């Protein structure tokens, strides 16, 4: 069975029908890159996967935890979110906590880890993203790229089964993009399951196992990134690729 199973998911914002029946399965260890024009529903889809957006129809299942439309109790959401980590475009680090404390917060408060192990975990995660010397630094003392790497470390500390990344390099200065992508690439190599919305087409082609092209609220094309980039099957993907590359 797939690790992530998305079946017939619909989402409306008022009269705006944003997701129009999404079906998608993600296998353990897969790196899925989601691309598409602005407004095609990429972020909304990602956000439904950890319950930041409720769904109006369909079903989402992650590692045995299912979420249906109008069936999302606090307990279900908690169970889902323990399995799904998320990294945001704007980092969203907690400004009043140091890098280390940002990582330790959820492991202590949510998982009930004791301070000692939480500290060790946080240190290990910072080491993983190459920021072992920034444990005591506050977010506003870090560059954008460093903040985003702390945000990745914070999500990883919860040992999620899947990591969602929504345009995590879009708010960065160009020279900082690569340090973040390098971390993602390393995670992919270690077998982390990743679902990422990205505008980095070259990265999607290089690192992605699957490419999802979203168009008007639907998965318009799905397949091997290298094949799809070389030979888009639909004119919509062809025109999208030529407009961004």
């Amino acid at each position, binding site marked *: 069975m797939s690790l992530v199973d998305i079946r017939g998911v619909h989402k409306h914002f008022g009269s705006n029908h944003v997701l129009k029946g999404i079906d998608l399965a993600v296998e353990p260890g897969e790196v899925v890159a989601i691309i598409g024009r602005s407004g095609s529903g990429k972020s909304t889809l990602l956000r439904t996967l950890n319950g930041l957006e409720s769904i109006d129809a369909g079903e989402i299942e992650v590692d045995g935890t299912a979420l249906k439309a109008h069936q999302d109790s606090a307990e279900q959401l908690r169970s889902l979110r323990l399995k799904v980590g998320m990294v*945001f475009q704007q980092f*969203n680090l907690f*400004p009043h906590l140091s890098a280390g404390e940002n990582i330790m917060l*959820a492991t202590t*408060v*949510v998982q009930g880890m004791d301070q000692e192990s939480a500290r060790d975990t946080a240190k290990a995660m910072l080491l993983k993203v190459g920021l072992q010397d920034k444990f005591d630094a*506050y977010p506003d003392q870090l560059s954008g790229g460093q903040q985003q790497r702390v945000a990745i470390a914070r999500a990883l500390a919860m040992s999620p089964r899947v990591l969602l990344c929504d345009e995590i390099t879009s708010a960065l200065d160009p020279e900082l993009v690569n340090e973040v992508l390098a971390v993602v690439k390393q995670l992919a190599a270690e077998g982390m399951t990743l679902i990422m919305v990205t505008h980095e087409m070259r990265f999607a082609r290089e690192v992605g196992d699957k490419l999802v092209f979203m168009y008007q609220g639907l998965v318009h094309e799905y397949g091997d990134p290298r094949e799809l980039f070389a030979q888009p099957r639909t004119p919509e993907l062809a025109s999208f690729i030529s407009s961004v590359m």
Partner: protein
Amino acid sequence: MAYQFDFPAVFDYTDALVTGAGVTLGLTLVGALLGGALGTLGGVVRAWRIHPLDWAFRLYVEVIRNTPFLVQLLFIFFGLPSLGVQINEWQASILTMVVNLGAYTTEIIRAGIEATPRGQIEAAQSLAMNRWQTFRHVVLRPSLQRVWPALSSQVIIVMLGSAVCSQIATEDLTFAANFIQSRNFRAFETYLVVTFLYFLLALLTRQLLNWVGRRFVAPRRPCSPEVR
């Protein structure tokens, strides 16, 4: 004929001044602590729209914000006993300070909470934190930090406003002033000294609140800005 200043006539009553200033500070301290707690509760209730407490706080805030402090004090001191609630001038003064400050604090803290960036809450949610954990660990401190200057000013406004508590014979600094000038007939000197004392108390309180803010509300910064 030139007016002959006679400040020693005031300083004969130093004890009364010190006691009065102590009472004013005490009223302010208790008022700020209890009023702050009430206002934090109110701010959360209003920001989260917890029914039916929500509309109760809304009504409460509107009533307090749109009536004079003195009338609130008189209502509590003379009005409550008519309802069978026995209350002395101390209790009435403290209660009025708490109720008054609680209302303003509710609005200030509500504004602070509502200014929390959406992304902060989403980050906490995505880490599987529940509503209470999110509030306690992610929302509260930055919200207080945002509104700390406004809260401090409000505490000082209420401290200065507490002068009217002398109207119901609470023996605060203003009460001491009235008492002293009725004995020495030196109104100018007495009120000048008391004005200066209020000024000092206000400065002192602001310093204290600034320190509390730096020490307990703002992030515990490492001293060197060279971490990057």
